[in-house]
């Protein structure tokens, strides 16, 4: 059974601009955001059989909804994030408290080494990838790899719109990957192609990439994906996945969607 840490959008809003998606003037509609978040939670729990752990939202920390950035979890160990932007750094404390109170062994990186958790680190059972340098300092992966005993292949993210690895790269349970190659440099593209044979790579067209097609959540044979990515869904269905499109427009305004709103706990 899959468990995820989520944070209800009680205090969600666009209060600052730390990526090209955010626009304080445009803002996000809190009512629509609440409806969309509830719909996502329902799909995850009812359609995909996931268990959601809800952290209590903290006023003044609007991006706490994007729980995937809290850290990276492996078994009962969590490596806590150290956010690059001061706007998000206060999130570290409530997340740390949550993990400690839920019995996790909490690992911290050396001070000053930026790492944004599941936002930049994705993988399958034995193959992990780490996005850098926009939010995570590549040197963090050395520590994370040692803490968790994992091989982490760093991938450079070269497009500011795809600032976290989970905005352009999504490994699936069957060994496939959804990705937007244009977000990577040629070394990163070559490294991904070396690890995923052509038939396992689902390259997303740009118009779907900017609708966050890669910011999907894969639970067994279910893929929860932001709406507006028909060709990606078609490819997934041909591979035998059940797709669940969810409208997440209010969160995409902040540069996040389904994956950003969930942190895998197991």
């Amino acid at each position, binding site marked *: 059974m899959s468990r995820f840490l989520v944070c209800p959008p009680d205090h969600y809003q666009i209060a600052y601009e730390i990526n090209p998606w955010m626009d304080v003037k445009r803002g996000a509609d809190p009512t629509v955001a609440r409806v969309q978040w509830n719909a996502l939670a329902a799909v995850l729990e009812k359609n995909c059989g996931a268990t959601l752990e809800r952290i209590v939202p903290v006023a003044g920390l609007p991006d706490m909804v994007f729980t995937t950035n809290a850290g990276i979890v492996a078994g009962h160990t969590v490596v806590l994030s150290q956010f690059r932007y001061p706007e998000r750094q206060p999130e570290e404390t409530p997340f740390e408290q949550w993990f400690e109170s839920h019995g996790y062994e909490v690992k911290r990186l050396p001070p000053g080494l930026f790492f944004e958790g599941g936002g930049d680190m994705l993988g399958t059972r034995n193959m992990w990838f780490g996005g850098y340098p926009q939010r995570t300092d*590549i040197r963090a992966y050395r520590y994370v*790899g040692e803490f968790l*005993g994992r*091989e982490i292949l*760093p991938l450079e993210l070269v497009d500011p719109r795809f600032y976290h690895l989970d905005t352009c790269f999504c490994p699936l349970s069957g060994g496939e990957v959804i990705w937007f190659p244009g977000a990577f440099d040629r070394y990163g593209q070559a490294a991904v192609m070396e*690890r995923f044979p052509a038939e396992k790579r689902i390259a997303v067209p740009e118009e779907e990439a900017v609708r966050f097609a890669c910011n999907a959540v894969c639970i067994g044979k279910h893929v929860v994906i932001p709406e507006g990515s028909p060709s990606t869904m078609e490819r997934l269905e041909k591979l035998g996945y059940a797709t669940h499109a969810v409208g997440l427009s209010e969160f995409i305004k902040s540069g996040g969607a389904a994956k950003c709103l969930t942190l895998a706990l197991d």
Partner: protein
Amino acid sequence: MTHETIVLHGHIIDSLLLPKVLDHILQYGGSFEIAHIRIGKTREEPSDARIIVHAESPERLAEIIAAVQAHGASVEKEADCQWQEAPADGVFPDDFYVTTHLLTEVRVHGKWVPVKEIEMDLGIWLDRNDPAPHTVPMAEVRKGDQIAVGREGIRVTPLERPAHLDVFGFMGAQVSSERPHGHLITGIARRMQALRRSEARILLAGGPAIIHGGGREPLAWLIESGYIHVLFCGNALAAHDMEAHLYGTSLGLHLEGGSLAHHGHEHHLRTINRIRAIGSIEEAVRQGVITTGIMAACVRRGVKIVMAGTIRDDGPLPGVITDSVQAQAAMRATLPGVELALLVASTLHAVATGNLLPASVPTVCVDVNPAVPTKLADRGSLQAIGLVMDAASFLRELARHLGWKE
């Protein structure tokens, strides 16, 4: 050129980080050497690489380092050079750093400072009154002097291939008697012409075979023509050169015809005695006692002569330094400004001079015994030419290239 060592650790092979970092170094106009690489045996095991990055200027190097740091490369941890006081006069502290003949820098208070007076097999001394460290021979160290110890905070720059590609650039360290000499001697002559124009100094260290074999005239001509500025030799070369003037013989054999002169074996002793009576070679030349040959040419042209004695010397001539530590110091003192060294037909003087010279000074070693040029070439200089040939033939051909007419 300047350099810095960086290290990369992690899954640098599969992620193509290593080629990316190397490409970045080149794209930013630098170059690199992989000093060490260890590739993980399994997919889980990380790999390590240690890379020396070279760049034209410190600014360019800083740009490159900044660019590759973003990809996880870190600058190898640097420490200041460690110093220890010499425990007694003429004694280095244990674990003293032994210099090479290559450009050397030491890190003092976080800054890399070049070591002055580079010479191999010495220590490095930091004088309290001089911010720049310099080399110091064992015999000259004084109790309490600060001497570099260990290896931290000391770096050596490997020789670069010289910018102008003449015979010195192409030769490398090959020595063979079965190589044509002509083009090499032409190349050496061209370099000497260029150095004479630029007022750089040319050193010749030579042995008495120059006189016996008939190299006296072309060498005297080279000196008179301003191609030689420093002469290192022993008692014998000077004695036989002046013997040739006074008696027409070298070690008692007539230079013309080669017959043994009557009581010729006494000639060099009588020559030495004559000069000792006059007081100095310079005075003998000034008085017109010696008017031809190498020593006369040196005195007339103001060439700096350092004569170093050996155990079997007769006399010796006035001016021969019989204390070898003092002789080394005198040789060392003449080296600044020397940009070419010709080491001709003298094993001891050639090796001694080779030891004193920084690797950056182009060196030509001429000897009939291949062991001598080979020994010199093994110093690791890219700019060493070894010629296995007779000294006199070399000097004649060289002088002819420069305009000498027999």
